[in-house]
Structures are given as C-alpha cells and as structure tokens.
C-alpha cells in the first residue's frame, strides 16, 4: 500500500475499503459468488466421493462437465470456476508485486474465456467408459438405490453434498413440504422445504444464485459496452452525431425500461439468453449520458490536445486516453446496473415471464404468491434477492462516495 497511498485512486480505494457498509456488502457478495460457484457441492444428487468394492471414485467431479446434468452454458462456466477460481486466486496472490492489477484482471478474464470456449468443444473420444462419464446421467432410480444403500448399509463409504437433491427435476409427491421434512426418495431432509412442484427449495436457491449473477454481469457488461460507445461518440464528436444520439438517449430514458423488456420478452422467446440480451440492449441510456458528460469535460483537457498534436487517430484518443480517465462514473453505474438487472430478471420470473426452465429466485417467489400461506416460499427467495441487491447497492454507494471528489471524507 505504500506506493498506492500516494495516488488519488489508492486514497479512494483505501477510503472505500474502510467503510463498514462496503465491507459487509463485499462480504455478502463474496458469499453469493462462492455459493454460486460451489453450488454442485451444496446441492447435488451425485456423491462427491464414492467408495465401494471397485475402489474410490469421485462421481461429482466427472459430473461437473456432463452436458446432461448441466445443460445450460452458464452452468458450464461456473463449473469451470470450481477449479479455476482457486487457481486464479493463488496466481493473483503470487503475482501481486510483479503485475499491475489491470493486467491480472485481463489475464484472468482471458483464461476463463478460453477455458469456457474450450469446454464447448467435445474433446473426449466417443465409446468406452469415458463416454458414460461425459454423456450419461445416472438414472434417478440408480441414485435412489445408492442413497438407500448408503443410509441402510455401512459397507459403501460416500461423501454427499450438503443437500443430496437435484435442482432440475421435481420429487414426485413431495409438494410444499416444510423446511426440515425428510424426503422419502433420498432419506435426507429438505433443508429449506420443497415447492409446489416438488423441487427442493435449497437446491433451487443455490442454482438460482448462478442465474442471478450471470444475468447481472452479462446484461450490465452489454449495456456498459453500448452505453460507453454511444456516450463516447456523442461527447467526443459533438455536432449532429451528438444531436441524433442524444435524442436516442432521451427516448430510451423516457421509455420505462421494465415495460420495454416486458414487451420484447412477450414478442420473442423466454430464454435466459434472450433476457440477458434484452436487458443489455435496453439499459444503456444512463451509462451513455454519464460517459458523454465525462467525455465533454475531458476532451478540452491539455492531454487530449497533446494527443491530437501527436497525430493519434480519434478512436485511440477516445478509448485509450479519455476513457481510462472517465472510468469512475462507469464503475458506479455498473454496480447499480448489476443490481438493476438482477431485480428485473427476478421480477420477470416473478411475473411468469422468465425462462420456465431456469431455477430463478423470482419463479420461487411467484410460487409463494400463488400459495400464499407457505411462508418459506416467500421469505427465502425474497430475502436472497434483498440481500444481494443491498450488498450491490451498498458497494455502489461506497464507490460513489469514495470516487466523488466533492464528497467530504
């Protein structure tokens, strides 16, 4: 911190991290991220370690990259992070003195992206026993048999997830059970009860965290990208470009985002992917306005004139010189944007317009609304959304206070 404390950014960072609300917010957010990444270890029907006459095996680790168990693409990403997150954390720590933080962020992103793309390519040859690991999901009957054997007989040794229940298939007959009721199929309790279809609420919640975080990050990333480009062009180029783009921004600001999203979802299909794209495409107006203001004030500075005099191309001045100097409002709006996207996604699911196949928190809360007497269906998803939104809003608020030169410290 010795050299960082001298820079304004370092000062702001230090101030930011000293706020109690920010610390709590960051802690809660980290908890949600860890839960999302290690969801299969918290709720999964497959044993983590299994030992029988054939020897010791680790079925869950093989299952993580099984397309049938985790068909959604974001699940694959989070399953990759199960291994990559600790590795990257160690690398970050090891390289903390050698590499700038910015470089470490870029490299981490690159590694995760490459690994994710690489995992989309089927690599293992078909046939043989590997195929079974990669493509076949153990049948529910087989899992039940194993669970029973484990519960009744002490011969096979196994370590199961915290709640050995699936998130993507309902348990027949186990409808609206109270938290703590035993599930006959597995012999273990529904930790947070079961819902109106027979899903385990805990498993749904844990995998719902993945959806919320993915939506938040992807939608906000997209809207930041669009907003930055439009705001930069508008603020830097000025003239008729500015007039046209500002008119567009005004229209988007006046259009109530939620209604626009609702309309688009009604006209297209209801998949998580579409919802992410739509949220990204509709939420950029605020960012564009912020970036434009920042570009307007920066573009008359001396360093921009100097860059002009050096004959640098305009896009380079815009995105390599001005943009890094106007990152702080972007950062603030990104934090609030993530919170907004998470709210909108769970709201859509609550209204019954979300992806019917995704275990979203809003879907669970909607079941709570339909079965109004069952308090755990209301409190559990509601409090989860509330906690995540509060954490993000507190972080955003802390960022705003830390980065705003006008705020008193």
């Amino acid at each position, binding site marked *: 911190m010795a050299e960082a404390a001298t820079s304004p950014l370092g000062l702001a960072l230090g101030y930011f991290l000293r706020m109690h609300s920010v610390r709590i917010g960051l802690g809660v957010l980290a908890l949600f991220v860890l839960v999302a990444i290690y969801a299969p270890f918290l709720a999964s029907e497959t044993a983590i370690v299994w030992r029988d006459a054939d020897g010791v095996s680790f079925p869950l680790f093989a299952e993580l990259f099984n397309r049938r168990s985790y068909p959604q693409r974001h699940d694959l990403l989070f399953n990759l992070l199960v291994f990559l997150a600790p590795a990257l954390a160690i690398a970050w720590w090891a390289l903390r003195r050698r590499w700038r933080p910015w470089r470490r962020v870029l490299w981490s992103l690159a590694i995760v992206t490459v690994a994710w793309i690489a995992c989309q390519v089927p690599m293992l040859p078909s046939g043989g026993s590997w195929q079974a690991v990669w493509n076949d999901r153990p049948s529910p009957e087989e899992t039940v048999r194993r669970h029973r054997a484990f519960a009744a007989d002490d011969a096979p040794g196994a370590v199961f997830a915290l709640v050995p229940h699936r998130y993507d298939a309902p348990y027949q007959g186990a409808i609206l059970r109270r938290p703590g009721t035993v599930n006959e199929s597995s012999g273990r309790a529904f930790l947070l009860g079961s819902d109106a279809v027979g899903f385990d609420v805990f498993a749904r919640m844990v995998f719902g965290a993945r959806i919320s975080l993915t939506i938040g990050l992807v939608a906000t990333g997209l809207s930041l990208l669009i907003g930055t480009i439009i705001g930069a062009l508008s603020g830097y180029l000025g003239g008729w470009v500015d007039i046209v783009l500002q008119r567009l921004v005004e229209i988007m600001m006046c259009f109530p985002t939620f209604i626009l999203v609702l309309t688009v979802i009604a*006209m297209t299909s209801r998949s998580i992917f579409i919802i992410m794209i739509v949220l990204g495409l509709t939420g950029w107006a605020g960012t564009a306005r912020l970036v434009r203001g920042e570009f307007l004030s920066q573009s008359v500075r001396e360093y921009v004139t100097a860059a002009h005099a050096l004959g640098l191309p305009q896009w380079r001045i815009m995105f390599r010189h001005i943009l890094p100097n106007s990152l702080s409002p972007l950062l603030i709006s990104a934090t609030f944007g993530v919170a907004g996207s998470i709210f909108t996604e769970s709201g859509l699911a609550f209204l019954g317009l979300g992806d019917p196949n995704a275990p979203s928190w809003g879907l669970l809360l909607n079941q709570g609304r339909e079965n*109004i007497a069952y308090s755990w269906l209301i409190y559990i998803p509601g409090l989860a959304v509330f906690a995540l939104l509060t954490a993000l809003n507190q972080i955003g608020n802390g960022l705003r206070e830390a980065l705003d030169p006008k705020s008193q410290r």
Partner: protein
Amino acid sequence: MVPTFLGILVINFGVLRLQGPTLSEEMDKSIRNDGARNADLVATGVENYLGRFRSTGLDLPALVNLRGFTDIDDVVALLRATERGPAVLEHERNRAEKDLWLMGRLLVEPLAAIVADDALAELHGPASMALSLCAYYPLNPEDLGRLTPEQQRQRQTRNHALKGLRIEYANTREAGFATTDPDAAGKRAAIAAFWQANREDFARDGATAWRALVVETGFCDFMRKLFTGTLYSHQRKQWVFSLIADRWHVTFWLNFASIAIAWCISIPLGIRSARRLGTFEDAATTNVLFLLWSVPSFFVGTLFLHHLCTDTSTGKAWFPNRGMSSEGALWLSTPRYLLDLLWHAFLPLVTLCYASFTSLSRYMRADILEQLRSDYVRTARAKGCAEDRVVYHHALRNSMVTMITLGSGLLAELFGGFVFVEYIFSIPGLGSLLLDAARSNDAPLVMGSTVVSVGLLLIGILIADVLYAVADPRIRSRYG
C-alpha cells in the same frame, strides 16, 4: 415531448416486428405436413395466418412495399424459386413459397397474366395456387363493422370461388413443375373470368403501386391502427382500446396518488434530516431509507399479501387481497365507498411508493443543505428571520425547483412498478392487462397497452415540466 413519443412508437414497432421469425416457425408447423402436401390444407394454413396476423400488419413488408412494381419476369423468377430441383435446398424453397403466398393483392395481376400465357404452361399450376392465396381476403371480425353487408358477401363468395381455381400440379425433385389437373384448361378459363370480374379490386396502375410503396407497409399499418384506434385483439375478440378504456384510470389514479404520497412524505423527511445534520437521527433515516430502497417491491407486496391479506386460523385478514372495491361496493354511500376504496388501495399504494422515498428525500436533503450554505440564507438569518421561516420560506422554495426537475426524471425510473402491484393485488388495471397480453403473446394488446402506459408517463413528465415553470420565476417570466 412529441418527438420522444414518436421515437417510442418507432421502437415499439421494431419490437413488434421481432415476432416475425417465431411466427414463420409457427406457420411452418401449421401448414406443412411432410411429403404429401394437401393443397387445401396448405391453403387453410395460409388463410389462418393471414387472418390472424393482418391485424398487426405482419403480412406486409416493414418499411417499403415494392410489391406493386413486380412485373411478370420478377414473378416468374419468384415462382421458379419454389420449384424443386436436384440442387435446391428444401428450406430455402419453403421460404420462397411462403413469401410468395403472402404477397397479397398486388401480385394478382401478374399471376393472372402468367396463367393466361401459353408459353409458361409449366408454371400454370403454381401460379394459380399463388393467385388463389394472394387474392384471398381474410374477413376478420374487425372488418365486419367496416364493410357493408354487400361487400362482405361479395368478399366471401370470392374467397370461396378461389378454392376452385387451383390447377393441381406436381412438384418433384426429378421433373420440377408438372400440371396434373385433368381440367387445367377449364380452370384457366375460370381464372381469366375471375380476373375480368374483379379487375378493379386487383388492378394496379401507377398510382396504386406508388401509394402501396409507402402506405401499404407494416409501419403505416401499425401507426394507422394506433391513431385511428382500430387495433384489434384477435385472442380476446375485442378492440384493444376499448379494453384499455375500461382499465387505464385505475392505473392512472394509483400512480398519481403514489407519486403525491411519495412527495408528501419524503420532502419533510429530507428537510428534517438536513436540519439535524450529523445527528444520529439523520444517519438512521439515511441508512434505513437506503435499506428500504433495496427491498424489491414484489417481495414487499407478497409479504403484505402473506401477513396482512390472508385469513389465518386465528383471525380474519386486515386488508382485502384483491381488487379495488368490495363486492356490492356500488350500493354503498359515497363516504363509505371512498373508505372502502382507501381500504383496498392502501397496501398497493404503500408498495408503489416506498421505494421512491429514498432518492427523493436524499435529493431533498442534499439540496436543502446546499441552500442553507448559500449567501441569501445567511442574509435572511442576519436579518433576524426565525429559523423556520428561513427553511420553509427561503430555502424550500428554491430547492423545489431542483426537486421538480428530478421528479420528472424519477417518474420514468419508478414507472413500471405498477405491473407488479397490479399483479400481486389482482387489480384490474393496465398493468395486469399488459401482463396477460404478454403471457398469451397477444401482440396488438401488448402494443396498445404499452403505448398507453408510455403516454401516461409522458403526460406525467409534461405536468412536471409545467410545474417547473410554475415554481421557477425565471422561466415564468420568460414565457409570459
């Protein structure tokens, strides 16, 4: 204001056209049964499609309609594109066929000319099929009021007659088109007679083609239906705007009341916090309001529903769980009716407005603080004004200007919450209408209710702008 509204309409139109791909998939499902295709079945599929989606103008091109300028050569090329051949991809051929069949009345003239042409004998079958579908005029329920009974009868007879004009043909991968109809010559004569009889309906001289270029487009159609109020919901068999007319006032009053309440509560809160700057009360208010802001409104609404609106074994619910008035409320006396309304509206209003307390009172606090530091306040204090008079008479008046400016921006952000509230408390307003329409993919109804709700929002913003002029003497003096 008007350009913004027009821009929003354009975006709405773009969103409406998004359903194109899903619709064509749906149509594929309805009109295709693989291999042996029954011409009548296919035709019924296209006719259903036309009838359903003409009400949103989806059978027309989006912005420019060049169908009036296709001459015989173009149409021959279009027909050739639907021919099976050794190297033709089936899905491309399907698409070409579908596109051709949905071209509408402007293609009837060249198709009739092709059927009359002896040199194009192998195209007579497909051309007659396309003609029978292009000339088809779906009689939608919304047309029944517009056309005279005479015209309706004429259209119906004509639609019926079209079925007999199809010359049967084979379309095989080896040989391409081949006419198989034993009565081909008779049907050709019938088509020529049909064309002669309905010449004025399908003729396209220069003026028709040019008018179609801009007027017969999806965009014009949508706008015309929107502005003349002839948007028709096929699923509900009702005019969209009559559905909205029954419901919009509920949403309007709910929103209006919630904004008024939010202001009446958050302005005193903000002033109070500013005057007690740095005390525990100030910090507590700020933090509690900030936490409140993060609670999603659908969670709060559901909690109210769970705790306050549901009968339990121990007693009756405190508040009603649905609607805006009790059964038989119409027969109550006016004060009782109003009480009943308030009883029903209380929880929805709380759910709608609690989230706006935070930002409004924060801005109020910051602005009052800034005013209290300014010179004129020091002057007022030096003059010996009482502190209350300084705050409420001097500072508050100036910060109202800022508040109103922010108010119009906040409106757009908070707008949309009514969808949740109406859904949770089963209130028959615009939001629940929009939601029902969105769930059942009822495009005209979605468009109509979106446009009306955005219109309401814009009216709100307009009111805020007018208030701004009222509050700020500088603007007032400039305009009168």
